[in-house]
């Protein structure tokens, strides 16, 4: 049996596949890169060749310009490519639009790199598909038993209750520009909120990109309009940093909300001055992480980033060999 390290091994640049000569989500420019999804800490500009889903390539082009890489190769979900005997395919990860797990096969050995993923339903991307494998390489952003994300419908209902309770105020929901913002908008539509949703300028291009991929966001209006009073009772979606920014002064006595898995912990909400924390995450919570490992039952579990030690301990307690890779450069604080 081949050692898994000879197929994929951690390097400072990222996970490296020697027999196929490519990196997965490298943090610096490399010759060949397989990119799992479009968040900035996983998808960087300047690689020679980028292999990713069509959606992820479109997101990268939108963020970095059309010339973000020397060349690109789009893979449909499940469509394999083979080079030097190494087969690579991309399988839905359920994280954001275009997000994928990278399945790498070589000489009878299967290794799956999860990228960032979640298990619950997301109206903006296809659901995570478990792939049976020898080594499952998982993220662990929320790898502590305190992270148990509630049903997202319940969180949206809390937001709408607050909007009804404070009709004279506006609600600004901090949400990351890629994925979270569009998911929150879709969830609001599903919950029956049919009024225009006001959006910060930094979200506009990615919103259009999502719409071009068939995800209907309903009527969106720029949050730059005329008089202050216009925003009473309004829902505004903005990047999290905008909440503390001078930009937010145009709104009447705003309720600061933040859609993030970190909002599970009260001190985090308090630190950022959040009045209405919404626990809506694009990452797997503790129960999803452990259920996924349990379902896949890999020969070995490798953990890329996040709170590796707790998930590793859980795996060991359940008879699965685990190893923390401690990859650097993946910023679990910024995204989600």
């Amino acid at each position, binding site marked *: 049996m081949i050692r898994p390290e000879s197929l994929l091994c951690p390097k400072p640049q990222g996970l490296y596949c020697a027999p196929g000569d490519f990196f997965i989500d490298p943090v610096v420019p490399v010759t060949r890169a397989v990119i799992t999804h479009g968040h900035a800490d996983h998808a960087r500009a300047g690689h020679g060749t980028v292999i990713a889903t069509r959606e992820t390539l479109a997101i990268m082009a939108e963020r970095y310009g059309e010339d973000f890489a020397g060349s690109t190769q789009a893979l449909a979900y499940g469509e394999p490519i083979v080079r030097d005997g190494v087969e690579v395919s991309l399988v839905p990860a359920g994280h954001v639009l275009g997000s994928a797990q990278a399945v790498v096969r070589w000489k009878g050995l299967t290794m799956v790199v999860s990228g960032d993923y979640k298990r619950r339903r997301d109206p903006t991307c296809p659901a995570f598909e478990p792939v049976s494998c020898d080594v499952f390489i998982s993220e662990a952003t929320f790898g502590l038993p*305190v992270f148990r994300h509630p049903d997202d419908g319940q969180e949206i209902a809390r937001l709408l209750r607050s909007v009804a*309770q*404070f009709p004279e105020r506006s609600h600004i929901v901090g949400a990351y520009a890629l994925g979270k913002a569009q998911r929150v908008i879709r969830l609001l539509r599903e919950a029956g909120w049919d009024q225009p949703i006001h959006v910060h300028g930094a979200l506009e291009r990615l919103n259009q990109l999502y719409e071009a991929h068939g995800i209907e966001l309903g009527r969106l209006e720029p949050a730059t309009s005329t008089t202050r009073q216009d925003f009473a009772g309004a829902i505004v979606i903005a990047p999290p940093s905008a909440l503390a920014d001078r930009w937010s002064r145009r709104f009447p006595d705003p309720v600061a909300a933040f859609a993030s898995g970190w909002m599970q912990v*009260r001190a985090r909400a308090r*630190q950022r001055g959040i009045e209405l924390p919404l626990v809506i995450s694009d990452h797997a919570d503790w129960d999803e992480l452990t259920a996924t490992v349990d379902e896949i039952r890999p020969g070995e579990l490798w953990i890329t980033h996040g709170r590796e030690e707790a998930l590793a301990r859980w795996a060991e*307690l359940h008879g699965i060999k685990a190893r923390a890779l401690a990859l650097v450069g993946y910023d679990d604080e910024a995204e989600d």
Partner: protein
Amino acid sequence: MRAFAELLDRLSLTASRNAKLTLVRDYLAGAPDPDRGWALAALTGDLSFTAAKPAFIRKAVEERMDPTLFRWSYDYVGDLAETVALVWPSRPGANREPELSEVVDALRGASRTEVQRLIEGWLDALETTGRWALLKLMTGGLRVGVSSRLAKQALADMGGVEVAEVEEVWHALHPPYEDLFAWLEGRSDRPCANSPGRFRPVMLAQAIDEAVDFAKLDPADYAAEWKWDGVRVQAVNEGGVRRLYTRNGDDISRTFPDVLEALEFDGAIDGELLVMRDGELASFADLQQRLNRKSVDAKLLMNFPAGIRAYDLLSEAGEDTRVLPFAERRKRLEAFVGTLKTSRIDLSPIQAFESWAQLAELRSAPSPGDPQVAEGLMLKRWSSIYEAGRPKGPWFKWKRDPFLIDAVLMYAQRGHGKRSSFYSDYTFGVWTEGEDGARALTPVGKAYFGFTDEELKQIDKFVRDNTIDRYGPVRAVRADLHHGLVFEVAFEGLQRSTRHKSGVAMRFPRISRIRWDKPAGEADELRSLERMLEQMEGR
């Protein structure tokens, strides 16, 4: 339980008083009896349990999960109740979620071992926020920033009545307050307020506007007395029921057993709670040693003896005197206090004056002794009845001019709610001489009001343009001899403090003027504050 839990959750992260009022009012209007009554009691501190000790909760959770994973979780979150609420492995369908009233009923009748079994069953059935609320309630640590005053205001808003009406009946009622809600919802008459030892809503004074009011007022219509710098209290003994209340109706009897013992009368008086030694007043700092304590020992009682300086009589031998004019009440009060055999209750003397000019002189140069520590003067119309609330006209307060210093802005912190995008909380300092002889700033206080919205924008810009360091929501602002922003800071008094590096603490500091024109190097020295302090102490 779910609605109560959501209320606590929102309150714990809400800073604005208005938003809190809305949250509490809506909860009380929407929740059923008797849940809302118990919730109200929990919010106002009239209901708390110590049924679950932290050690028990820890043990219970460690039986259900790997202790190491629990420890890591606790280290990460830092709060036991919150950690347990998050990590508790829920068993949906294990039980029905309990209502708040079920929890209260069960805890009242259960033995200690039964209680522990019950709590575990409830934790199994509840979701995260519910578990958190339950654990906070069980461990007696709600701390969501709801004063009893705010709760009463929310009740008044809910029922469309004046808050004084709620206060009038409050102390005759008991959780879960079903008669109170029935009245507020128009289903019954106002509950009877006649319970012995109850609180009566207090009468408050308007600040006088020197430029406008004096021209319209006749000095002969008004009595003047010093505005004592203590805590406004209402002391009651009716049929042997003795109570000491703050002006908001909070019962502080237990904190002041020495005062309570002195209430050898039948009636209710309005006055100032102060530390008094041989009939002479001590400073507010001394009184602070006695405030907010759960238990008091003999040493504290001896070193900081408390008493009441009486200024009004609200009831005597079952007669409601509030309907009498102040002149009449004052005569009755003098006779009333005259019969008391204690030295802990004395009279606030009336200050004679002929004209407003004469009174102004008295205010600016108080006579030696107690008046030196007064905050200013009170004016009361001789003909006024005792009216709850803050009516315009009968009572005025005329505060002493504040102390002023020039200080330099050192740190700024982002505000909350409306001000969350503004650096609106300022730490300011004055100059001291370091060991090396160089002048350096030392922080002496914090202020977050006293400026207009327009000025706030300008200060915010200054902070952003002159940031030299950041710590979370706080920015350090450039402040040296040649560059910095000077505030004229107004404050009511000074006291020594071991908690502040500078050794002094200010009372009610606020920004009185922004000195854009003044070079930072010309701001005040710590020495000038120390001199002020010596003057106050040496009175």
